[in-house]
């Protein structure tokens, strides 16, 4: 984290959070100021990570509005996808309305390589919690996550090569198309010249569980198979948390690298970026591939958590939902997207129902609030655009832009 700190310089907006600490007692404030800069920057994230890590231990004693551990797993998976999408939309400025395709690709990779789907073969490699005689391909979920990431990244490249030549709206429309094609393909993939690839509308279920195997269970007490463990949700939660942190870490590192600079340059001005020696196609395709990589991992992990991959999970509205998370959190801002993602996923999973219940109790009339979920998200986005258009935690660049109102990007190439 050394370079970006220096690059940010010592301008008045260099450390936006620090002027707001006036509420601290002077002694505490002075002690805080004495801490070296890198330490100060790490305190808040570390505290949050520690709180998050122990969440399953104190979740029971929290008020009812807090999400359960199982819900948190889903929230985190969606947030992971949002962080992946943020690389494409937030960093590189490529509007992708078909991100759900990557989610599906990841989920089905897990379904193919860790289930009974291909009964023609029997292949086991590090699988846990199932009989060694079970038919189908059964590869360790830990490996599957990597395979799913790689497979989805390749899918991202294949989708990217023909589409990334397009700009702006055209790209959005074509990605929208791909987002529709993949679920359709999945739905109808149960008879490809007589071969059942996706099991059609029924989906593929069950999918093997992650786990550490019986040897490690006996030795240090970690569960052999998460699904069969008493603390199922908690283990899925810790793994999800680890995956999210890894995604965030990679995302931040990439942002502050040569590649990240190239993405932002393309977002700012494609023509100028090309003139600076940035290969447009290759750089954009990398954004796609890396965004897809994390989407694929998240998809595969969600599939193993639910123990199934079903075509009904991969509708267009998922793409929009993920995009809402990115916009709500702040395009290009990793921490913003994490907050936006957790918040919207919470509303979707539990929040709306809970708010609905309280509201219904209050007015004494039953109202099904979750039914209006997309209305609520739409309202949230509209309010955001009105009052805080750069997102909950804006990327520092965009904050600047809005404060000054100096964005003069031309809609067409005017250099000719």
């Amino acid at each position, binding site marked *: 984290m*050394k*370079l970006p700190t*220096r*690059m*940010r*310089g*010592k*301008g008045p907006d*260099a450390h936006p959070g620090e002027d707001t600490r006036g509420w601290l007692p002077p002694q505490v404030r002075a002690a805080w100021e004495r801490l070296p800069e890198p330490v100060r920057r790490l305190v808040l994230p570390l505290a949050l990570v520690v709180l998050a890590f122990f969440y399953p231990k104190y979740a029971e004693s929290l008020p009812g509005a807090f999400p359960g551990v199982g819900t948190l797993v889903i929230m985190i998976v969606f947030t992971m996808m949002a962080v992946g999408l943020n690389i494409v939309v937030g960093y590189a400025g490529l509007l992708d309305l078909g991100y759900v395709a990557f989610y599906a690709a990841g989920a089905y990779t897990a379904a193919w390589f860790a289930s009974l789907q291909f009964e023609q073969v029997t292949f086991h490699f590090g699988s846990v919690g199932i009989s060694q005689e079970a038919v189908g391909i059964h590869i360790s979920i830990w490996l599957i996550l990597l395979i799913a990431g790689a497979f989805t990244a390749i899918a991202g490249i294949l989708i990217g090569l023909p589409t990334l030549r397009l700009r702006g709206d055209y790209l959005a429309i074509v990605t929208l198309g791909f987002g529709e094609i993949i679920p359709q393909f999945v739905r109808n993939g149960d008879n490809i010249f007589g071969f059942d690839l996706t099991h059609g509308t029924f989906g593929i279920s069950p999918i093997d569980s992650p786990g550490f195997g019986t040897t490690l269970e006996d030795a240090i007490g970690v569960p052999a198979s998460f699904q069969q463990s008493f603390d199922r949700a908690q283990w899925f939660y810790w793994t999800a948390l680890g995956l999210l942190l890894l995604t965030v*870490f*990679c995302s931040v*590192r*990439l942002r*502050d*690298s*040569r*590649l*990240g*600079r*190239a993405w*932002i*340059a393309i977002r*700012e*001005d494609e*023509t*100028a*970026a*090309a*003139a*600076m*020696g*940035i*290969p*447009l196609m290759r750089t954009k395709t*990398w954004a796609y591939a*890396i965004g897809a990589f994390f989407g694929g991992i998240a998809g595969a992990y969600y599939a193993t958590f639910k123990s199934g991959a079903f075509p009904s999970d991969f509708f267009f509205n998922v793409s929009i939902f993920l995009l809402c998370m990115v916009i709500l959190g702040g395009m290009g801002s990793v921490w913003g997207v994490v907050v936006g993602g957790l918040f919207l996923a919470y509303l979707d999973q539990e929040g709306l129902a809970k708010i609905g219940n309280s509201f219904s109790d209050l007015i004494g009339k039953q109202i099904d609030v979750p039914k209006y979920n997309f209305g609520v998200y739409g309202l949230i986005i509209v309010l955001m655009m009105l009052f805080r258009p750069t997102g909950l935690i804006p990327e520092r*660049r*965009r904050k*600047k*832009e809005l404060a*000054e109102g*100096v*964005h*003069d*990007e031309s809609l067409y*190439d*005017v*250099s*000719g």
Partner: protein
Amino acid sequence: MANEPKDLLLDAGRVRKEFGGLVATDDVDFTIPRGSIVSLIGPNGAGKTTFFNMLTGVYRPTAGSIVFDGIDITGKPPHAITKLGIGRTFQNIRLFAQMTALENVLVGMHARLHSGILGAIVRGPGTRREEREATEKARELLRYSGLKSRHGEYASSLPYGDQRRLEVARALATGPKLILLDEPTAGMNPQETANFIDFVAKLRDDRGLTVLLIEHDMKVVMGVSDRVTVLEYGEKIAEGTPQEVQRDDRVIEAYLGKGATEHA
């Protein structure tokens, strides 16, 4: 000039560009000797920027060939041409507005740096050294271009003249042999223009760069250019030393209109 006439850094032969029925540049021959400052001038709409965009790969010529430093670059993509050693600025400033001055220059170095995705994530000693050296070099370029104290400021918040300088610094960062400046003094007052022209001369003298200047204002380039080429309606109407060009009847006509030659 001490250069031998044969040592051409850029050799464009019969370059033609048509947009539909419009001929923007009509079989233009154009050469740039190594180490010289060459200017391309002409009234607005003469095809200067079109020509420029063909040299930098933004447009593919309809016909003709462009050879740079012994390599045929006709129709190559912009990033490949930049990598071979042609840096450019834009007529209407095209900085990365939401990046700092330093970051703008670092983007310019893209083709000269090597770290990839794994390097970015792991950030091993090689990547860190590369970034450190690149940052150091970028600071030096900013100093050289007269933006010493401005490295942390966003490009969009710089004053106009500094934005022009930053564009040059960014172009220098691409490690060019030839730098193309597209109307770099547009919008500058006479004093700023004079300073900038001195800076251009310095680029050649200190850094050994070859410079191609595009201008519609003839006066700007007269003092500094070794050779001047004049375009009008996509055709080359004159070429030579600034003095020769200034006396050319067709040039005077192009700039001042028909009849000007008779009264002159």
